[in-house]
């Protein structure tokens, strides 16, 4: 029943052959076809711009006050592409291989290969748009390395790569808006999908300023609504990032794939208090130059915690650079899931260096020295003092990561140029998402998903700098072609009316739900419930999971959901700008999705990538996959309640890569 529509033929030819064979819609007919694109992040903005440019009529929505503020703006470290500009042996195949391996062999070969194939064009496209990537003195593009790979293929713009890429896509979108090809609806939230005769034919949206519930019809709907990491309440995602669009789609028939695949990022600023509203990422690129450690002895840990010693007081041999010790081949650049678990392991063993015991050091002292020595040579400084060397090195580090260091100082009031950063893992990204076929269509015909909202390319763990790549690949180069295959049947359909019973029904449901929340006679603010959901998820469906905890979590979430509907107080009115109401409808969906995540984690009793089951580990504590029983995508069908979802399995077939136990030793 699940047809992934992967084209026949050799891996490297699948995409080009598919492109040659799919049906096209001719330009004259495109003018009669409407497409709704929900979301203006990298995936949404690039898709909307490209579709409009091809001639379709596009409506684009975002809940922020401007499409430029989509969460992609916050991405820091970089974007991968197999350009091999550094001549270090990179290739399409190597990027493909690294991604499948990094994902712990739980992604589709064909999709990942396509991603690697189009990666080069992304960089060309962005440069043509005026994205100011970092350059070398010779004027050519510079690269850095990210975790889980041994080449330098990451393009970047200081610590603001996402910002620069999104502003590029936003400018392409703005150009189409000015031409009248895209109608942009800022501060609009999609509340539901409307299905007619089994096909997605539009959406119900709420105008967030006036509260008006609106009907929008189209021949196809594309969801580019980002990830659902905020199910954990505390994450590196923006405050507004939410799962409502994908969850509503799921309830309308789109299967949800691998909901439990969550990425916990190793380097984030630790929690500081109960009022904490979000966690801040310190980019993975820092692991190019930073070394992670904790003290070797517990007495030093004690001394650091009570303030009698500082990090810099510890000598080299008193420090445990545990990643370098455990994974000599990759050292500090192991993939994220491995680095996060290693930090947890040390902190659980009592070596955490802050008051809560949940922090490790990220130290740049060696980098200052190393860069400083090079600078001394290139600048021809004779007999430099140690201080001179370190200062020169600090300048180099500043030019690479200046904004991240500033951000760290701003938040913690500590100067990372003087003392090591303190970091701890935090929820960051969701590999799971709507199940899509090779054409990026969900199991509801006419409903597509792109970017972080789909599950397609990263398996059980995403490599750094690959989300930006996937978002732009989907939006610029994949979806604009593949959607034509579906729309070719719609050239004679004509405009979809919005006065049908299906629209009536969907609108009524949304209105009823909103009025129930607004009129609820409770006393507890929305965030209170969200925090509690987050704690359940973090403690029982976080970095390490087991059967007992997951079963408990499912019951706890069901109870919390009941309590939410009984006790929540949503202030203000439905016909007005009302951020409390926005939070409430989003949380209602997280409260269901959270349960789906736990159920999926419970069902997958193997460990793989970011999904670590205590019951399935090697002797030295590494994730142990069970290929015989779990080489499949879990695609869940909604049947009335999260706990009753039905599991469908899409077998994963590896024709080109041999499945191996991942090793970064």
């Amino acid at each position: 029943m699940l047809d992934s529509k992967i084209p026949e033929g050799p891996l490297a030819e699948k995409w080009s052959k598919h492109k040659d064979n799919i049906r096209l819609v001719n330009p004259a007919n495109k003018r009669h076809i409407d497409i709704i694109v929900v979301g203006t992040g990298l995936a949404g903005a690039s898709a909307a711009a490209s579709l409009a440019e091809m001639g379709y009529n596009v409506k684009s929505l975002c809940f922020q006050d401007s499409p430029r503020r989509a969460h992609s703006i916050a991405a820091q470290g970089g974007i991968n592409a197999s350009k091999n500009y550094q001549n270090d042996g990179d290739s399409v195949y190597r990027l493909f291989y690294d991604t499948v391996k990094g994902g712990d062999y739980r992604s589709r070969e064909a999709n990942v290969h396509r991603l690697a194939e189009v990666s080069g064009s992304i960089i060309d496209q962005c440069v043509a748009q005026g994205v100011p990537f970092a350059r070398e003195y010779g004027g050519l593009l510079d690269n850095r390395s990210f975790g889980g790979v041994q080449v330098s293929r990451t393009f970047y713009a200081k610590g603001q790569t996402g910002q620069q890429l999104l502003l590029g896509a936003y400018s392409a979108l703005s150009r189409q808006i000015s031409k009248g090809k895209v109608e942009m609806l800022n501060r609009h939230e999609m509340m539901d999908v409307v299905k007619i005769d089994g096909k997605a034919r539009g959406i119900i949206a709420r105008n967030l300023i006036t509260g008006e519930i609106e009907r929008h019809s189209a021949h196809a709907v594309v969801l580019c609504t980002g990830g659902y990491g905020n199910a954990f309440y505390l994450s590196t995602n923006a405050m507004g990032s939410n799962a409502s669009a994908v969850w509503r789609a799921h309830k309308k028939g789109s299967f949800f794939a691998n909901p439990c695949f969550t990425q916990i990022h190793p380097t984030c600023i630790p929690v500081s208090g109960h009022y904490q509203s979000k966690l801040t990422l310190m980019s993975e690129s820092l692991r190019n130059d930073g070394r992670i450690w904790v003290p070797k002895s517990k007495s030093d840990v004690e001394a650091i915690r009570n303030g009698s010693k500082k990090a810099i007081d510890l000598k080299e041999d008193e420090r445990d650079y545990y990643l370098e010790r455990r994974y000599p081949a990759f050292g500090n650049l192991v993939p994220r899931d491995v680095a996060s678990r290693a930090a947890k392991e040390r902190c659980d063993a009592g070596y955490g260096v802050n008051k809560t015991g949940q922090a490790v050091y990220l130290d740049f002292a060696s980098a200052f020295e190393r860069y400083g020595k090079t600078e001394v040579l290139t600048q021809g400084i004779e007999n430099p003092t140690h201080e001179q060397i370190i200062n020169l090195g600090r300048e180099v580090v500043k030019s690479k990561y200046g904004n991240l260091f500033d951000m760290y100082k701003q938040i913690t009031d500590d100067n990372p140029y003087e003392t090591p950063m303190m970091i701890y893992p935090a929820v960051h990204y969701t590999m799971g998402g709507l199940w899509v076929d090779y054409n990026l269509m969900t199991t509801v015909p006419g409903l597509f998903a792109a970017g972080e909202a789909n599950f397609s390319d990263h398996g059980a763990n995403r490599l750094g700098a690959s989300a930006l790549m996937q978002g732009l690949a989907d939006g610029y180069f994949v979806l604009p072609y593949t959607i034509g295959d579906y729309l070719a049947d719609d050239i004679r359909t004509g405009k979809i009316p919005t006065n049908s019973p299906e629209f009536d029904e969907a609108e009524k449901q949304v209105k009823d739900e909103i009025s129930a929340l607004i009129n609820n006679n409770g006393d507890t603010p929305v965030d209170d419930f969200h925090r509690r959901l987050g704690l359940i998820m973090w403690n029982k469906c976080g970095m390490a999971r087991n059967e007992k905890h997951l079963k408990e979590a499912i019951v706890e979430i069901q109870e919390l959901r009941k309590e939410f509907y009984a006790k929540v107080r949503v202030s203000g009115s439905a016909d007005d700008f009302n951020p409390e109401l926005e939070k409430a409808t989003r949380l209602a969906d997280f409260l269901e999705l959270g349960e789906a995540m736990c159920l999926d984690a419970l069902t997958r009793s193997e460990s793989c990538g970011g999904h670590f089951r205590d019951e399935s580990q090697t002797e030295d504590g590494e994730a142990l996959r069970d290929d015989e029983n779990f080489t499949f995508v879990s695609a869940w069908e909604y049947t009335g309640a999260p706990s009753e979802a039905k599991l469908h399995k899409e077998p994963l077939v590896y024709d080109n890569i041999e499945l191996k136990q991942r090793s970064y030793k």
Partner: protein
Amino acid sequence: MNITLKVWRQKGPNSLGAMETHKMTEVSGDMSFLEMMDVLNDRLVREGKEPFAFDHDCREGICGTCSMFINGEAHGPGRNVTTCQLHMRSFKDGETIHVEPWRSAAFPVIKDLTVDRSSFDRIIQAGGYVSVNTSGDTQDANSIPIPKHDADEAFDSATCIGCGACVATCKNSSAMLFVSAKVSQLSLLPQGKTESSERVLRMVDQMDIEGFGNCTNTGACEVECPKGISLTNIARMNREFLSSTLTSK
């Protein structure tokens, strides 16, 4: 810390607004300003009152959504920080803090501390892009080397987050810093150079249509800009504008 807050309350675009006073206790210096506002809102909801509506999203100083005028300064005290990155340790125990929305005719208030900045989007739509199609069939990215210095300078201009603090700060409500940052970024790069004359004319036209005021070089915008966008951008744009009007009219 104990803090007295005076916060702007305004029901809608056409209502009159006023300051409302709230006492805050047990404020920690490690809280961000917005987290302190969260605590206030949480209390208001529990007391059955309406919380304050304010804009925010990333809380990392990059999306440009947050926008509070704090103690008479856009994004509050401190340089190079957005409201969301401002921490309570920047204030003193017992202090009274005034919180207001951005004020400018081109940024009408939606509710409380939230304003409508879609005028900025329309300025970009008027020409803040390179007219290249998204087909990907462009030339190889390394076929046009760009001197590192130019690329870095373009990057510095491109870091504008579109928050509007420059407008809120300016006594004339001028959007020159914002517009010039985009104009500079694109005209510093070979990719954007070709259409730079037309671009600057169109963007400046749109800026006037939206009701932003004229620039009288007070330099206040540069001081309050959280991203350190410098006045050199305005100078560059003025040159660009002058030569464009000379050639086009």
